[in-house]
């Protein structure tokens, strides 16, 4: 079972975890991204996430397919949020269950690392004195 979602609504961490629980699993690893209140010493007021939706979903599917090929996993949830997020809110939840914990950890880390490299989603940080598209400029 895999469940991939890109949504404007707040993510439900509990539902993500419940969805990967199964009597066959011995371990679940969960990664939860949260919006930090500062970056490089500057206070962040809020963030905005924009996605190229059709392609983002395709890239998320590729990552999930690659993870399930590399490790023996039971269930996998990958939810990413878009739109305006306040400090402390959750842009991404990844939950992976597997018979053995090593596979769950490795897959979860692989998914978040790869998502940050390949999935067409962009984050704009809003400060008191301006706004910046993260990573856009050298």
């Amino acid at each position: 079972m895999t469940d991939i979602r890109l949504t404007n609504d707040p993510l439900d961490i509990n539902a993500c975890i419940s969805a990967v629980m199964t009597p066959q699993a011995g371990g679940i690893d969960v990664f939860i991204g949260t919006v930090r209140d500062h970056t490089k010493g500057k206070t962040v007021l809020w963030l905005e996430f924009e996605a190229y939706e059709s392609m983002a979903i395709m890239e998320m599917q590729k990552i999930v397919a690659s993870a399930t090929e590399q490790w023996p996993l039971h269930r996998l949830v990958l939810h990413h949020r878009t739109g305006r997020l306040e400090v402390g809110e959750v842009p991404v939840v990844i939950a992976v269950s597997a018979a053995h914990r090593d596979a769950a950890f490795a897959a979860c880390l692989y998914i978040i690392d790869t998502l940050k490299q390949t999935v067409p989603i962009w984050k704009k940080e809003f400060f008191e004195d301006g706004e910046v598209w993260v990573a856009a400029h050298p």
Partner: protein
Amino acid sequence: MDINILGFGIAREIFGSGQVSLPLGNAATVADMRSALEKQYPRLGQLATYMVAVNNEYAANTRTLQPTDEIAIIPPVSGG
């Protein structure tokens, strides 16, 4: 041919729109499109880097474009 190009993130802001149209020679490649686009939007060339997607997949610079392709400018991603 005229191709339509989608812009996201900072590319959308540079274009001043989510989509722009660009005249290109027939059998133009992604590389040709990059050159023409950067001439028209110099700020695009100042990005750390950017990728081009064709039909929802990352495309090589050598790829030939069709007027029916869905083409998008992908600035450095920053999801998660």
